[in-house]
């Protein structure tokens, strides 16, 4: 019995340690980034272009922030409609049919495509075949392919999470699915869908591999033209570090990237809470 109690205690300690490790890892990462990067977070850093010799050793990351925002916007705009439509089909129309199984399986497989392969495909298709060149559009579309399954999965789950009873009630009253969808189910699922969208945005903002070969360059004065390349935060970070341009700026850029992500996460969480209060 004594042995048993000791064993119990041993395992308890292991489980607690593992859980706390998670906290330590996250706060370790965030804390370290903040510690190393907070000195760079000046107004100049946010609002000016990279300068110095080599370029980027001084100055800021404004074009990179701009470029990342444009990329994300294009990716989300392209992916959101097909994503939602697919999710609606899966959750509302497909039932347990073969088609549903096939699409679900495909979506899951797409979610697993390595991001570099997305880049490879985007490069071959958008940059080379369609002739967009290394450009905002090519990068945005590659990112769209990447976040499409994320959007489908979160939206599908959000739709399916809406109380099944609502469907039964609606249907037994003889109303159509579309009426039910637009009056009851979509409004209920909206906060979760939006939350998922935000997470997908964060995912797109941080992706490097797909834009490395399709959109990103090390220097550009402005961003916004669809057919011109852009700077982007994650790629800029990669260049700053791997070309040994400036470790300090690299920490600053990483911190900005992570802060952006944290913000998106917090908003997504807020949406979720909104929902749990509403329901």
């Amino acid at each position: 019995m004594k042995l048993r109690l000791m064993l119990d205690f041993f395992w308890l300690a292991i489980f607690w340690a593992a859980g706390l490790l998670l906290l330590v890892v996250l706060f370790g990462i965030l804390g370290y980034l903040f510690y190393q990067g907070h000195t760079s977070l000046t107004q100049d850093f946010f609002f000016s272009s990279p300068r110095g010799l080599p370029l980027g050793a001084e100055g800021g990351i404004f074009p990179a922030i701009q470029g990342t925002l444009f990329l994300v916007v294009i990716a989300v705009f392209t992916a959101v409609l097909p994503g939602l439509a697919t999710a609606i089909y899966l959750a509302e129309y497909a039932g347990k049919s073969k088609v549903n199984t096939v699409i679900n399986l495909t979506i899951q497989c797409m979610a697993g495509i390595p991001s570099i392969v997305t880049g490879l495909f985007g490069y071959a298709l958008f940059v080379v075949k369609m002739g967009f060149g290394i450009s905002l559009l090519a990068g945005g579309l590659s990112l769209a392919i990447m976040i499409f399954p994320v959007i489908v999965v979160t939206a599908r789950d959000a739709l399916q999470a809406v109380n099944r009873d609502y469907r039964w009630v609606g249907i037994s009253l003889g109303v159509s699915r579309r009426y039910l969808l637009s009056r009851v189910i979509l409004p209920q699922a909206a906060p979760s869908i939006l939350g998922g969208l935000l997470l997908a945005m964060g995912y797109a903002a941080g992706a490097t591999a797909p834009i490395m070969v399709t959109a990103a360059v090390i220097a550009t004065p402005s961003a916004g033209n669809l057919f011109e390349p852009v700077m982007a935060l994650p790629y800029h970070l990669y260049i700053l570090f791997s070309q040994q341009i400036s470790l300090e700026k690299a920490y600053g850029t990483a911190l900005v990237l992570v802060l952006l992500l944290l913000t998106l996460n917090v908003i997504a969480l807020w949406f979720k809470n909104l929902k749990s209060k509403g329901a």
Partner: protein
Amino acid sequence: MSLKTENLQVWFGNQSILNCINLEFPNKNISAIMGPSGCGKTTLLKTLNRTLELEPGYRYTGRVMLSGKNIYAEKNVATVRRRIGLIFQTPVALPLSIKENVLFGVRYYGERNKAKLEEINEQCLKQAGLWKEVKDRLAQPARELSGGQIQRLSIARVLAVNPEILLLDEPCSNLDPSSTKMIEDLLHALANQLTIILVTHNLFQAKRVAHNTIFMMDGQIIESGETKRLFNHPEKQQTYDFISGLTW
């Protein structure tokens, strides 16, 4: 409206759930369906208004005749479902206001006239015995109502689309005695206008409200007939066992 089933059989996958059901539900009467858990009561109700079709993997043979027409031959499913209202066991408030809950189906069927809508709302809530309790807060979300109130709201919602037959699946199983009483009174009142079919697991409720009682077991009709007769002089041993509490 008279409702009749002819040789109805239902399967889920390869499992037979309902077996050769031949029933006739008399017009403007209350019929109670009873039987042990899992015997297929809910499935039978769903078959009667074609919500069964939403279950994946169902199969059926036989016919369900509404005023002499097979509802399964009907093209427009929605109309069938509207004509034969079904109220589920767990009361569900749609995430809308009380009033919009009642008008949910009505709006779909194209009623736009405001005054008319108001009228339908008031009349159905009154019929369901809920008007007095909620008339001052029609715009509030319906989920703030109590279980018994939501149950009555569901009934009002179905009444609003003017059904000819009302199917109720254990409408009182989650309710306290006073709410139960209210629903039973409501059923009595409605029996003047509608044919009502009621699934219940409460023997005494069946005794109190039903004109006819049907006893099922394992997907088959064991016995059916006038309530008094069935309870006092059951013809089958299984019926006797059930009403004396041996099977549950």
